[in-house]
């Protein structure tokens, strides 16, 4: 076939400035502006575009739309490479590089096509039957042999090659709310948008193509289209082209992806390449059109075989007459319109109509034209032409005595097929609306819910333009409260179609394709039947029918029909698999939008963040937070830094950012009662101005969180939580108050972000406070005893000072309103210089708390009881609290549960890591006795120490030799199990 570009047409004038160049497999070609890649390739007489998945057979252009299963290409270079692009729906742009895929060394001569020769061995499911052992009898065990074969299979499979470089473009998310969303801009869609807008509705209409108009674009003239667009614009309807409605989700939410024209987003790195738009509409109108089907006959995959409607599109939209001599094989009326237009454009047409008779109107329309009509006729086999990979000849059949029989052959370089139409009901199927087989029109139909989801036009199975437009008008003629009862007649052809899914004769052999991309043949479907894979789901999975990039838009129904035939039942009994989003594939970049790199899971920064960075703090991720890890001096390592920080703090003074702790204000007359129910230990008698450390259990009695709660006034408390659980403790308190105990009069408010928290620890902490606080008397040992809290003025700013210690030293936490945090910290730090003073980070904080046996989520890991962590004294027996009942279950009170312990290496020079296991000496196989949760070098003790859990606790292992075993890091050593309070167990240092 040798397509001709018609000259001087109105839409894409073939004048200089409208000519663009592009590269096809690195060779330069010219095309017209507005061409799709497929149109550009056809215009340059390029017909072998790619290679099929399994047999590597040549694939040409089969359609002009999203159903394309043959012409898949790779576009762009380097990081801009995009694989598996449909040539039929992608606009050619100036200088675009287009490559064929799945072929080596070239698409014209592909080594892989040797697989085609052995095709008869590669029936559906053959790979389930071999490759597991040494061939031919599958000897052996294990997976090695399979993995050997798999290596080559993986290389042969796959289609395009994606880039391994980061995608340089950006993407955006958008949210839209509209009264009416219309999907599709053909005659029905445009009319629906107009009718809705005339009712005063806010309307959004989307079109997947880069041009508006749908099937209007394939018509010889565009007067009607232009008129409709004018009306739309006057009515201020929002029109989005290049926008695919890829999925219908719950509550009338539609996922849209809009592709920006290359020339726009390439001008600025900040402009998105694509936009993911979540649209919520009151009414959704699916004017999504219908897709023309093919049927199975031998070699129906040869380049040069296309759908009838695509020839019309190439003719009218792209000014391309595919051939001077065209054969059309059809079973319905729709092909005739195209035949007439092609004839008008100068082609000689042969129509093979599977029906034995057609209506008079049609006969009159083609009378006198160069159209030869053969009724009761079809194609049984296509053959390659000489010196080409494309079609050159067809073998005909005629219908006689209720069956097909051979009727000679015909030379043919362009064969167009129309074997019926499949309405695009995918979006309705996404939401599970019923889908029914319509026998008369041989297609599946859905009607949405006729309340807020409507299907109109050919998506509803209406084949005439007038009918399509009428179906759109109808929706808005009804009162919106009533359910819409569509009256438009389905179908609309003069003569009904004759179902046509396959033509085969037993004496003519070869491959007849049902799914040309995945190389599923009609005999594969029969084999699936023969082997018992008769349900649609089984057939699909066994043969891979409909699982290629086109998701079976053209081929699925043929497969169903062949299975129905084999089962001797109707297609409706075979059923249909549910369509899954997306309707056409969408890029992951668009779905992720701007939430990538540093915008992925946005960082939470404390109010002291900048201060820490200015002071050379190295930050580390802690959940979503960035927290200071350590503050190296010069080129100090992490280890050197934290040892210094902990040493200086214990010797004199250290300052630490503790702002990420959760902070919750609890107010109201019943606050005391509430807190008393939430914590295991009593709070009822806590005096104003004092705090208590509390343990919170889950409903099931295991430890949930710990923290300190301060009584600020009679009915007001400040609760602190761990950084990790700040969010869940807050939600939990709200649930308790709103759902479980609405009778309690209590309000809770999260103030985590309102207050910056800074710990001053070490023997000089009070001395520093004295220097910075406006009235130093407020913090004397008497007025602010251990576990006391006070509101004080620092630089005239009201702050809280709480005397509390996580490090085990005399220490305070100062809570500063976030807005003042930076300047206040600078002020504190400046005053700290009067002493030996350092900033300390998370690592040194960890060191000091491990020395003291204080806990974090490494120990409180959701699996421990209050006894396990040695705090059973905190479980009050005089009051009721959450978790009290279930914490007493049998297995939770066993004495052989793992319990918190301290760990010393016997050889004090040895180091080890968390995650190591603890075993009894001589035991090296099976579950361990215990494990290590937190490890540090202890500057106070002068060697490595750890916290961990061991079965039965200290008492059980008293006289046993315990070995620490870390096979992962090849570290084994003898350890001594000690009390978890490894440093200053009496707490003398706390009181300064």
């Amino acid at each position, binding site marked *: 076939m040798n397509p001709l570009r018609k000259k001087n047409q109105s839409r894409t004038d073939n004048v200089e400035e409208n000519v663009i160049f592009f590269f096809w497999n690195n060779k330069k070609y010219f095309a017209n502006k507005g061409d799709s890649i497929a149109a550009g390739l056809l215009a340059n007489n390029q017909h072998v575009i790619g290679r099929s998945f399994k047999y590597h057979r040549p694939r040409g252009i089969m359609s002009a739309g999203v159903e394309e299963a043959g012409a898949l290409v790779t576009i*762009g270079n380097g990081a801009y490479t995009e694989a598996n692009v449909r040539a039929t729906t992608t606009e050619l742009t100036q200088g675009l590089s287009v490559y064929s895929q799945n072929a080596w060394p070239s698409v014209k001569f592909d080594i892989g096509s040797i697989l085609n020769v052995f095709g008869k061995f590669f029936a559906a499911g053959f790979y389930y039957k*071999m490759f597991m052992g040494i061939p031919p009898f*599958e000897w052996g065990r294990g997976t090695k042999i*399979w993995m050997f074969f798999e290596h080559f299979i993986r290389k042969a499979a796959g289609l395009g090659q994606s880039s391994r470089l980061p995608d340089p473009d950006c993407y955006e998310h958008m949210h839209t709310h509209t009264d009416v969303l219309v999907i599709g801009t053909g005659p029905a869609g445009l009319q629906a948008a107009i009718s809705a807008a005339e009712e005063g509705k806010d309307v959004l209409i989307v079109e997947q193509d880069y041009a508006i108009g749908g099937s209007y674009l394939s018509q010889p003239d565009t007067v009607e289209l232009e008129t409709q667009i004018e009306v739309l614009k006057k009515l201020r309807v929002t029109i989005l082209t290049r926008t695919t409605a890829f999925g219908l989700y719950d509550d009338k939410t539609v996922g849209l992806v809009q592709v920006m024209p290359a020339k726009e987003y390439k001008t600025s790195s900040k402009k998105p390449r694509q936009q993911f738009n979540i649209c919520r509409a009151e009414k959704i109108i699916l004017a999504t059109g219908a897709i023309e089907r093919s049927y199975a006959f031998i070699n129906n995959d040869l380049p040069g075989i296309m759908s009838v409607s695509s020839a019309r599109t190439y003719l009218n939209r792209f000014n391309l007459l595919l051939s001077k001599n065209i054969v059309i094989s059809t079973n319905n009326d729709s092909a005739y319109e195209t035949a007439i237009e092609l004839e008008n454009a100068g082609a000689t047409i042969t129509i093979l109509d599977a029906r034995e008779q057609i209506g008079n109107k049609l006969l009159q329309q083609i009378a006198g034209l160069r159209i030869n009509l053969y009724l009761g006729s079809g194609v049984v086999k296509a053959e390659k032409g000489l010196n080409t990979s494309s079609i050159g000849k067809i073998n005909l059949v005629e219908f006689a005595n209720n069956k097909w029989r051979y009727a000679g052959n015909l030379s043919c370089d362009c064969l167009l097929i129309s074997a019926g139409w499949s309405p695009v009901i995918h979006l309705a199927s996404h939401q599970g609306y019923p889908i029914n087989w319509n026998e008369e029109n041989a297609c599946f139909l859905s009607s949405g819910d006729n309340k807020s989801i409507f299907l109109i036009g050919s998506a509803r199975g209406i084949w005439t333009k007038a009918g399509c437009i009428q179906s759109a008008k109808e929706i808005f003629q009804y009162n919106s409260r009533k359910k819409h009862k569509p009256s438009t007649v389905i179908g609309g052809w003069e003569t009904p179609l004759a179902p046509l899914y396959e033509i085969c004769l037993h004496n003519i052999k070869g491959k007849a394709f049902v799914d040309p991309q995945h190389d599923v043949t009609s005999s594969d479907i029969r084999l699936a039947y023969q082997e018992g894979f008769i349900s649609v*789901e089984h057939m699909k999975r066994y043969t891979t029918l409909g699982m290629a990039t086109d998701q079976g838009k053209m081929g699925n129904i043929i497969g169903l029909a062949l299975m129905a035939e084999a089962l001797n039942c109707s297609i409706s009994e075979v059923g249909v698999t549910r369509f899954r989003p997306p309707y056409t594939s969408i890029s992951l970049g668009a779905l992720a939008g701007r939430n990538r790199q540093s915008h992925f*899971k946005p960082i939470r920064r404390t109010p002291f963040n900048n201060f820490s960075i200015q002071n050379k703090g190295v930050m580390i991720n802690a959940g979503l937070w960035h927290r200071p890890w350590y503050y190296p001096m010069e080129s100090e390592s992490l280890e050197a830094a934290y040892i210094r920080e902990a040493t200086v703090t214990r010797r004199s003074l250290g300052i630490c950012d503790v702002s990420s702790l959760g902070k919750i204000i609890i107010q109201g007359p019943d606050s005391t009662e509430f807190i008393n129910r939430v914590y295991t230990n009593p709070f009822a008698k806590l005096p104003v101005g004092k705090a208590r450390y509390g343990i919170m259990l889950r409903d099931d009695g295991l430890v949930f969180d710990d923290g300190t709660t301060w009584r600020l006034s009679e009915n007001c408390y400040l609760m602190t939580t761990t950084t990790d659980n700040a969010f869940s403790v807050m939600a939990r308190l709200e649930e308790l108050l709103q759902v479980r105990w609405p009778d309690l009069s209590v309000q809770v408010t999260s103030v985590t972000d309102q207050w910056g928290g800074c710990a001053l620890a070490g023997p000089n902490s009070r001395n520093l406070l004295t220097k910075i606080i406006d009235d130093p008397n407020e913090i004397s040992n008497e007025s602010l005893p251990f576990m006391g809290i006070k509101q004080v003025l620092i630089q005239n700013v009201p702050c809280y000072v709480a005397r509390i210690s996580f490090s085990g030293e005399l220490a305070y936490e100062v809570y500063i309103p976030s807005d003042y945090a930076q300047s206040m910290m600078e002020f504190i730090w400046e005053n700290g210089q009067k002493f030996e003073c350092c900033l300390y980070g998370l690592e040194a904080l960890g060191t000091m708390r491990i020395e003291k046996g204080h806990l974090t989520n490494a120990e409180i890991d959701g*699996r421990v009881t209050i006894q396990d962590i040695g705090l059973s004294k905190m479980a009050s027996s005089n009051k009721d609290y959450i978790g009290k009942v279930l914490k007493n279950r049998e297995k939770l009170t066993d004495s052989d549960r793992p319990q918190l312990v301290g760990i010393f290496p016997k050889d004090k020079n040895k180091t080890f890591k968390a995650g190591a296991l603890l075993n009894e000496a001589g035991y090296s*196989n099976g579950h361990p006795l215990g494990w290590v949760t937190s490890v540090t070098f202890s500057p106070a003790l002068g060697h490595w120490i750890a916290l961990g859990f061991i079965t039965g606790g200290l008492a059980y292992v008293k006289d046993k030799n315990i070995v620490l075993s870390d*096979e992962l*890091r090849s570290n084994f050593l003898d350890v001594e199990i000690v009390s978890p309070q490894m440093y200053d167990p009496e707490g003398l240092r706390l009181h300064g």
Partner: protein
Amino acid sequence: MALQVTRFSAWNVLKNGFIGQSGWSRQWRDPEPKSKYDIVIVGGGLHGLATAYYLAKNFNLKNIAVVEKGWIGGGNAGRNTTIVRSNYMLKGNREFYEHSLKLWENLSHDLNYNVMFSQRSHITLYHTPSALDSAARRYNIMRQTGSDAEIWSRSKLEKKIPHLNYAKNARFPIYGSLVQKRAGTARHDAVAWGYARAADKLGVDIIQKCEVTAIDRKGQKINSLQTNRGKISAKKIALAVAGNTSRLWHLANLGNLPIESHKLQAFVTEPLKPLLDQVVVFGVGGAHFYISQSDKGGLVFGGDIDWYKSYAQRGNLPIVQDVAESAISLMPCLGRVKLLRHWSGIVDMSMDGSFFMCKTPIDNLYLNAGWNYGGFKASPASGWYFADLIANDRPSEIIKNHDLERFKRGHYIDESGAGPDTKLHG
């Protein structure tokens, strides 16, 4: 009776190439249900089919039926991301999943069906030194209990998978990873069909389109099941009906279960030439993401459950977005790669994230349920131990704590420590 089955081998594939594939018979029969069986397994998923196979194979039992309301392997068998691993650390789980992995290693040979189990390594990434340290406990326990586990440093990872996001400005810089090399992926559908074919060969009746509509219970015994294909009575009845466990439990009037059903989405991209050879898991800062590439070339991935209870086998956009964000963060080259399909399955989440395999308050009823995320990889061992439980009417030592009553005793098998909030056991 059982079919004469052509053995699967390269030899027979070759032979059938010459005879137009005419030598292949049905892979399993389509029998009419008998009115009486010794054992009826409800649920033709991977676990039900595997159970039937091991009952017949390990215990030489005949007269077994698997009844399936739809088509075999049509539930979660076909809706998962096909990952097989055994990186569990708690007693019971550890032994169970390790045994499962061992069964996987020879499954193709046992079933004479290529299930394409490919031991391509399962890599869990870590993003701070302390995260790696604390996860080391799990992998050390694996080593000490006879499994394989190792640490791959960042530089080793960079060599193995150069196109992960190693950028310094990555939101969560990669620090290192823990790896189980024997873990990998398999062809999920093939597992269902392979078990069905092998069980059928041993005489098991696989009855599709057979839905249980009522359960005839007399006190502590179930006499028969009412189905849309007639009444079937059985001496022993076993439930393996993920996603429908509570419904059948209610049919038997047994009250409530420690199970809540949620939906879990799965995703696949268009086929690409080899891009990723391993299974990579990315979980940090609330993100949860796992990805591998199928033999066909599609990248298969998933993330969290949809966070709310659901029986709808379709996903919603928030998780689609979350998962795409993780994908791009982990592999920035995926921006131009296109999503082909996403769907979802119903997972029965339990109160500690571990399964139930046990006797029930009914003497002749056995339960296999609550697989959370982990059902696929468990299939062989699930069939193995469930068959053992049914045949011997007592649980083996390994699963003795996977009973429904364990929470009453306060016995948890909680790998993540999330506690009795089902949605958190992702």
